């Protein structure tokens, strides 16, 4: 089983413990897109998508449609939502046929996402091994409530992680790298293992494979969770592209909760009509060439009715005007910044949130990119669209 390209994304915010954490406008769907889109033109080869996460946004909702549209893939592309942690990601990779895009997302701090394109390439996974024991020390309730943790860290470590890992390490020439456990445990779970990473759920194996590819270091990857372990050899036959998006971090506030609760009125019918243009960032282009964002029935230039088709817009833009809302708007996380941006190479402007920086830092003229974000949650339903991510200012 081979991988031709990898991508990794970490959000721009850190919590009080210094761990990467989601912005107020991110969730599993946007994280999946943030990593997946880094693969760029390679996505043309994708004919199936598997999204692995231990913590889906919802058991039924909008995730597959948003991720496919956000990646610019055909809405008919088969899409599997796989619930699982680190071992599940490795199992998913091993079972994937060429043309499969594997997305792995960890929405809780330490948050990250990663993508792997399963296709003939220079990175080979083989010699798999699996061990499974019942060690239900950590359980994750369906309701989204906090995890239930049986208070015996040594039981988890010795009877769970360590025993399962030992059974799958096998003798071999590759150094061991462990996914699915805290960084400080990863290096000591197996003798001689490489240092760990903060992420410890579904994204961790892909982040470690990406690290191996970047370092040119063959490894024996051991992914563990409770009493379950899956291991595989990661061997590099040549260089593999690893695309990475990580911005300078900002401290996240203690909570993103709105100052006061309020239900923002929703119309799923209206959202449905807007969906492809709004989530795919596409303009309605008239037969006369005029671009409309959002698309509309009548062309503003030639007056033609129903003569538009949707075309993706460029994702780079600059700020035409921007303001920061500081009043405690019910149902909104404040402060938030709004901008009208000029989309590069077009006469299209868009009204968007500014994201991934504390509000007020992107003045008129600032340059940046448009990225998929969860704009609001209305009557419990997430509403996705594009936000302006300012270019980082390098001192």
């Amino acid at each position, binding site marked *: 089983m081979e991988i031709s390209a990898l991508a990794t994304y970490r959000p721009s915010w850190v919590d009080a413990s210094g761990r990467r954490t989601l912005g107020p406008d991110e969730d599993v769907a946007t994280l999946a897109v943030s990593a997946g889109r880094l693969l760029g033109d390679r996505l043309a080869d994708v004919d199936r998508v598997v999204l692995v996460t231990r913590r889906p946004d919802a058991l039924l909702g909008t995730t597959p449609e948003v991720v496919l549209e956000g990646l610019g893939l055909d809405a008919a592309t088969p899409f599997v939502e796989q619930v699982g942690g680190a071992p599940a990601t490795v199992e998913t990779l091993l079972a994937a046929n060429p043309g499969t895009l594997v997305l792995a997302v960890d929405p809780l701090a330490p948050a990250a996402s990663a993508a792997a394109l399963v296709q003939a390439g220079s990175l080979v996974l083989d010699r798999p091994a699996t061990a499974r024991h019942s060690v239900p020390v950590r359980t994750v309730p369906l309701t989204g409530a906090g995890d239930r943790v049986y208070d015996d860290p040594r039981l988890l470590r010795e009877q769970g992680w360590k025993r399962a890992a030992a059974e799958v390490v096998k003798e071999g020439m590759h150094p061991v790298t462990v996914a699915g456990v805290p960084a400080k445990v990863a290096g000591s779970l197996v003798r001689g293992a490489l240092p760990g990473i903060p992420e410890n759920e579904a994204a961790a194996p892909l982040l470690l494979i990406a690290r191996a590819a970047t370092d040119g270091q063959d490894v024996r990857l051991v992914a563990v969770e409770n009493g379950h372990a899956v291991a595989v050899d990661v061997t590099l036959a040549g260089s593999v592209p690893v695309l990475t998006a990580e911005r300078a971090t900002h401290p996240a506030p203690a909570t993103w909760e709105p100052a*006061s*609760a*309020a*239900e*923002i*009125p*929703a*119309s799923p019918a*209206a*959202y449905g*009509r*807007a969906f492809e243009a*709004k989530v795919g960032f596409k303009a309605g282009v008239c037969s006369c060439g005029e671009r409309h*964002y*959002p698309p509309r029935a009548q062309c503003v230039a030639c007056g033609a009715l129903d003569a538009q088709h949707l075309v993706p817009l460029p994702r780079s833009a600059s700020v*035409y*005007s*921007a*303001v*920061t*809302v*500081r*009043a405690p*708007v*019910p*149902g*909104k996380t404040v402060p*938030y910044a*709004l901008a*009208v941006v000029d989309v590069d190479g077009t006469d*299209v*402007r*868009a*009204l*968007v*949130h500014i994201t991934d920086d504390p509000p*007020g830092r992107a003045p*008129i003229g600032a340059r940046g990119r448009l990225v998929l974000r969860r*704009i*609001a949650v*209305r009557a419990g339903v997430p*509403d996705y*669209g594009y936000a302006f991510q300012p270019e980082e200012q390098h001192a």
Partner: protein
Amino acid sequence: MRDVAIVGAGMIPFGELFDQGIKDMVSRAFGATLGSVDKGMRADEIEAAWFSEVQSVDGFPAGLLADACGLTDIPVTRVENACATGNDAIRNALYAVGGGYVDVALVLGADKVRDTASSATFWDWMSTNRDSAWDLPLGLISPASFALHVARYMHEFGATREHLARVAVKNHRNGARNPYAHLRFEVTMEQVLAAPMVVEPFGLLDCVPQSDGAAAVIIAGKDVVDRYTDRPVWVRGVGTGMDRVMHAHKADLSYFAATRKAAQRAFGMAGVGPGDIDVAEVHDCFSGVEMMTYEDLGFCDRGEAPRLLEKEETSIGGRIPVNPSGGLKSKGHPPGATGLAQCTELFEQLRGEAVNQVDGARWALAHNVGGPTAVSAVTILEGPRG
């Protein structure tokens, strides 16, 4: 079209009127307006009425006005055109009276903002004005909608928050003496600049309060004006202008295209220009909007609005006093009532009866801009000495 004059104008004090329902407010504003007619008028002399109300409360708007004012025997129509509703309702009534279909018409404006929970008010009002799929979820609240314009203007012309604060200081100074004003206190430049931020560059004191209120005018055709007054205030020009509704589609945020179009039509109809105006009531929902509007109405050249404020030319005693009533900023802004209250102030100004009288005022202008800055209405009045 025949000439049309305002023969009566009145309002109730604006404020958080928790002790009055909209029907009470409407009845009282109607009573005040009838009572202002110099030679008296009976309710049954009114032949048609227009009700300027932005957000419906307590039921069917036109019927509510007819019922509350004892006008169930005449046609009543509700007009809704966002924050420009008031002056646009006057335009609608003017066409009927000027066209000779009606001799005497009532235009009454009211809105009851403070009858719902603050959080509900917020989204209820925003939903009337925003595209549900595209703009509403972004939280483009009203101050942000105007701030996107003002921020761009400040960027292009070097205006500062101090210039905006001058508008607030001036209008509060006027409003403090207006017994009908909601916020009857003066503010200092320091207080305005130090107030909590709402949407940059607007602090709390750059913004209108949430007010309840009602105001009205009675207009009459030239043939019948003499029955009611010897000091009519003539409606010489009306104009309503539109713009694209989404901010991303407006050609240039450093001005209000709707205002320019409305003003051009009103001036064209009146046969006068901005230089003829002696006093104006301008839509200062946010301080910077008044500043920018000086240019869109032609009171000064492009980019010169900050200079007008520095030289206090729009203060009472200046070249072109703006908002002697206190404006929306101090008097308050019940949207449907706002344009009518502006014309009530100007009715008094042109008859020499205003609290903050502009000496010798002959020509006056009232201006609204609203919705997602996509509609404006302008009314031009001439006093009885003309």
